[in-house]
């Protein structure tokens, strides 16, 4: 028991970095002072004059000042360009951002980030009724259900880490929802049930299928990302719906949460006919309380909406390796969202410093660097609040033309996959493979597996092996399932040795369901949600630990505690498992047959059991009977 507690505390220590936005982060740890704290609504002066687009030739100076901060090219006259700022409601702020990363395979990855910050308090009993940028439907959900943090994602497709690298924000196929409730909530399960139903309405999704059979309370894998050090996982609920299909009907309500809707700014690009003509589509909403400044004196609520999409080179029709905003989204940009304090496009040109890989037009003078996933990336920045960005055409259509064509597999430092082994409908084995491709560093990962009850895990068969040797997890949290009530939850802290594959296997038995429990398409199989692998991966370059810095939105989602490592969460494939299925076209035949068998079998058995067998008197002959009748009539004794 003591060992268990000890290991648990190790885990908590290890994950502490993820859990808290550290308030007292000393300024002197950061290398340069050329940044400003992100006080959301104080009119920002440009950090350095060099960052201003006027300084055309100051390309690298602009970025070297802030080691991790982007070129801070906020115009002084920002307020003037914003209508409606005359209303004295200064406490909210909206930023929008599009990151485009050309991938080696020739595909292209576009990630939208929209952030609404609002300095308000939904909790302390005060009724918030006046909404400006922050969507009212979300605000009401936060206050009604005492939500501390809410993360919801809808994903169609599987992120191909081997070809695309790590995404800015990972998400599993289907729908994922995890919520931290306030510690004042007494009936968490009731709240959770109500909340899923409300969200199901807001996002037009089947989140109402979340019930106790697919909800778990992870003890370590999902820590609050906002300012909070609550780690009591009684207030956490996590559920995935791997079967959820994401389509236009989910996109529309998601877009409605944006201050500009789909009318202006980057969101005009979000046209469903193109977004769903892609290899991967993921949209998410993250709500959390964040610090306003480095001292964390004031907090505000952050609503972050992200949309990630990967366009496929081959299915885009033309054989040319060429991408443009118009080709991707069938729209070009003409203006920023007037409500946005910042509106930028970043193009990842790290692999293309001299323009030998692809050609980017129109060229931009602005460059930015960000430390991302343990790697220093360089970005070309297009600031949509500047008229000059749109050029003489009054519209911006970025064009990326590949010069060379090479598509090779990547070797991401951490990579995981999962499959079901075995054949037949009785038993099986779940294999989870985790690849640590780091040449010499080992690092720990937290594996979270939530398996539905109808796969009965044999936990005694759980093995963790790396390089053929047994690898003992330092922390195991296992919650057995209860039939029709709750799923299995298995969380393990495993040390991945460098440069090898760690394999986790566990055998299971397939349960026979009651006949009403089968889905309408039982032969399709049953889904098992993705496993979640969370890890602190050793970083090549020093990570930026100051969370309150002004950084591109895509690079500052997961708070970072240590300089030497960065947080990665990856999801494995969901599994499709066939269960033993009766032939549902047969019920009529079966009913007829069984009824007949029962009737005949029971009838004859009953007959044999209850009938008393007697030797029958041979019946008298006809003549004798006639004679007897006559004798009876005569009143004489019968023969």
């Amino acid at each position, binding site marked *: 028991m003591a060992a268990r507690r000890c290991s648990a505390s190790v885990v908590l220590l290890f994950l502490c970095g993820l859990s808290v936005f550290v308030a007292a982060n000393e300024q002197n740890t950061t290398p340069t002072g050329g940044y400003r704290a992100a006080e959301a609504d104080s009119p920002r002066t440009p950090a350095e004059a060099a960052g201003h687009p006027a300084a055309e030739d100051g390309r690298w100076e602009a970025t070297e000042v802030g080691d991790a901060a982007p070129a801070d090219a906020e115009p002084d006259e920002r307020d003037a360009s914003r209508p409606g700022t005359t209303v004295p409601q200064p406490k909210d702020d909206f930023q929008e951002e599009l990151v485009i990363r050309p991938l080696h395979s020739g595909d292209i990855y576009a990630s939208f980030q929209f952030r609404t910050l609002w300095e308000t308090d939904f909790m302390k009993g005060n009724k918030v009724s006046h909404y400006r940028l922050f969507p009212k439907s979300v605000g009401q959900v936060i206050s009604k259900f005492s939500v501390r943090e809410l993360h919801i994602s809808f994903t*169609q*497709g*599987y992120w*191909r880490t*081997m*070809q695309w690298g790590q995404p800015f924000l990972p998400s599993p*196929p*289907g729908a994922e929802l995890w919520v931290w409730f306030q510690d004042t909530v007494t009936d968490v399960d009731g709240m959770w049930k109500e909340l899923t139903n409300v969200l199901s309405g807001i996002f037009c999704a089947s989140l109402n299928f979340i019930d106790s059979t697919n909800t778990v309370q992870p003890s370590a894998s999902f820590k609050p990302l906002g300012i909070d050090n609550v780690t009591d996982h009684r207030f956490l609920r996590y559920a995935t719906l*791997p079967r959820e299909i994401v389509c236009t009907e989910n996109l529309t309500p998601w877009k409605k949460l944006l201050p500009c809707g789909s009318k202006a700014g980057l969101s005009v690009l979000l046209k469903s006919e193109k977004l*769903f*003509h*892609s*290899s*991967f*589509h993921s949209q998410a909403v993250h709500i959390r309380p964040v610090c306003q400044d480095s001292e964390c004196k004031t907090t505000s609520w952050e609503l972050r909406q992200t949309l990630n999409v990967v366009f*496929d*080179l*081959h*299915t885009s*029709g033309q054989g040319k390796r060429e991408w443009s905003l118009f080709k991707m989204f069938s729209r070009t940009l003409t203006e920023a969202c007037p409500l946005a304090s910042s509106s930028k496009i970043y193009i990842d040109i790290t692999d293309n410093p001299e323009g030998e890989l692809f050609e980017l037009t129109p060229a931009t003078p602005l460059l930015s660097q960000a430390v991302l996933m343990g790697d220093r990336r360089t970005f070309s920045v297009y600031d949509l609040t500047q008229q000059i960005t749109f050029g003489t055409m009054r519209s911006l259509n970025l064009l990326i033309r590949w010069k060379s064509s090479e*598509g090779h*597999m990547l070797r991401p430092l951490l990579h995981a*996959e999962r*499959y*079901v*082994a*075995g*054949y*037949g*409908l009785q038993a099986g*084995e779940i*294999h989870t493979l985790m690849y640590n491709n780091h040449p010499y560093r080992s690092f720990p990962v937290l594996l979270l597996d939530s398996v539905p009850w109808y796969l009965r895990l044999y936990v005694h068969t759980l093995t963790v092996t790396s390089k053929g040797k047994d690898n003992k997890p330092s922390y195991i949290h296992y919650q057995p399932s209860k039939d029709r009530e709750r799923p299995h939850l298995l969380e393990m802290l495993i040390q991945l040795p460098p440069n090898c594959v760690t394999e986790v296997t566990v055998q299971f038995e397939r349960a026979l369901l009651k006949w009403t429990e089968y889905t309408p*398409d*039982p*032969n*399709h*199989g049953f*889904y098992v949600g993705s496993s979640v692998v969370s890890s602190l991966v050793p970083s090549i370059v020093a990570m930026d630990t100051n969370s309150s810095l002004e950084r591109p939105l895509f690079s500052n989602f997961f708070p970072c505690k240590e300089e030497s490592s960065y947080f990665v969460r990856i999801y494995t*494939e*969901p*599994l*499709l*498992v*066939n269960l033993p*299925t009766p*032939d549902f*076209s047969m019920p009529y035949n079966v009913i007829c047959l069984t009824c007949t068998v029962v009737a*005949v079998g029971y*009838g*004859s058995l009953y*007959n*044999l059991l209850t*009938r008393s*067998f007697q030797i029958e008197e041979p019946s008298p002959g006809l003549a004798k009977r006639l004679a007897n009748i006559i004798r009876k009539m005569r009143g004489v004794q019968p023969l």
Partner: protein
Amino acid sequence: MGLLSDPNRRQALISLLTRLNAPICVVCYMAGVAWFMGLAFEPFTLRTYMSENAMGSTMVEERFPAGERALATGREFASQKNKVDGMPVDWLVKAMQARGLEVFTQRFTRTLPFPDENNERYMVKGTNVYGILRAPRAPRTEALVLSAPCSPGDNNNQAVGLLLGLAQYFRNQIFWAKDIIFLVNEHDLIGMQAWLEGYHHTNTTGMDWSPLQGRGGSIQAALSLELSSDVITSLDLVLEGLNGQLPNLDLANLFYAFCQKIGVLCTIQGKLPRNDWDSVSGYSHAVQTMMLMVMKQASGRPWGDHGLFLRYHIEAATLKGINSFRQHKTDTTTIGRLLEGMYRKLNNLLERLHQSYFFYLMPSLSHFVSIGYYMPAFGLLAVILLLRALDLWVQLVTPAAPTEDGVVDVEQQSGSGVLSVLTPLVISHLTGTALYMLPIRFQEMAVEHFPVSETEAVVLTAIAVYTAGLALPHNTHRFVSGEATEQGWRVLKLVAVLYLAVLLGCTALINFSLGFILALTLVPVAAFITPHVPKVLSAFVLVVLSPACTLLFSVFFFQELQEMPVSFQDGWLLYLSVISQGILDHFLYGSLVYPLIALMVYPCWLLFWNILFWK
């Protein structure tokens, strides 16, 4: 039921059954055979129809344009194959990568239990190359497989070319909902076995393979392509898989529907469809087609690369391009369009193929016989065994002769009866075990002492053990019970008959064809054999109807059906190679026919041999 509860009427029924036992048995046997032959008669069969709604119509616009380019790729593949003298792994990897697939390889090695002289291989070492087309916005839960074997010589180059051509074309389409795995397997079935075992991480046959790096979730359906000429006259559909398993009939229906739509001549068992079912030749054509299917299914071996998929509940079939001298030719583009249509339909599947039949026989591609129609044929044969058992039981329980003394005597007899039944059972099963174990174990010893190769050694040892079994057990019971009694052989025969009934019943449920063929030969033996029949003649009949001879006749019959009759000399060689193949199939792929024959059917037959020589 009143019939049975009334002792008089029960007695009457039983006496009727025992009195008319022999005629009823003969009638049943005739009726069974006649029923079976009637299955091929078209008015008695059902037309095939698509049961799966998701594949309901063939309304797909096939646009595959690049048949010529596929052939050019095939030629390039052939030259690369000749250059490296084997599987051109690097070239294939590059070719697949250039088509936008995720490419992986798998190495495997397998040492056969003894050299396979038909395919000239012993230590097999090879590489499978497969590329996965990732479906857009799909979570890697479902996959389809298209495979082509990399065969030695000039075979199947066109299949690989077409596979790559289709990969390129499929990659540019947006509508895929399932990943598509394009697999080129080396050493045909062995490579396929390695790949499937790797994919499902099982090891049933002790093969060495490197683990797979990429997967696509649960495989829903698979097609294997064999194509060795630029143009073909017809496409042949092969369904029979390991242990007589068949894919869902809807897969055959799908193939047939698209052949009809696109206008490709399609065959099954290499037999063209005919319309003249009412003529004698038309009927015999249907019978031949069905008998070929029965023979192939009974053999229990995979008749194409698809056969191994069926174990994993993956519906699979092999398409063989046949080029004969007919006028009507089909080019590669058309085959490509056919495959495109089939894959688009399979892609539409919402559930695994399960709507249609898994147990069927096909007298032609457009007609099928379902399990409900063919099982009575077997049932009529099996009922003979039950009738004989009833007859024996009645003879045993009723004091047959007034010379029987009393209860005590009967009990004594039954005490020794158990022993006299058990001994032959044990001995015959030990002989069966020897037949199963010895050929592989003693091959080295045999090679040392006799001038034979390993393969011959195995086959000849098997035949030797089989023949030795005939001499062994029939003398044993005398040592045990001292004297052979009437009662003794009746009990033994009762046990043997019931054993055979259960054995054949179970076999027929799994593999109807094997069960039926065994029943055809073994049931008459079981029915008529007693110690009182003429010894020499009966022994001859018994040997002729033994499993080994059944196999020999089947070989000749199969050749006859394929219209490739062989002389006795060639037939004998073929017979020997069939035995070695059967043993190899068991050790390489897990076919169950050899252990079934060796461990169950042969001992059962030995029991009847024992009864014949009871005195």
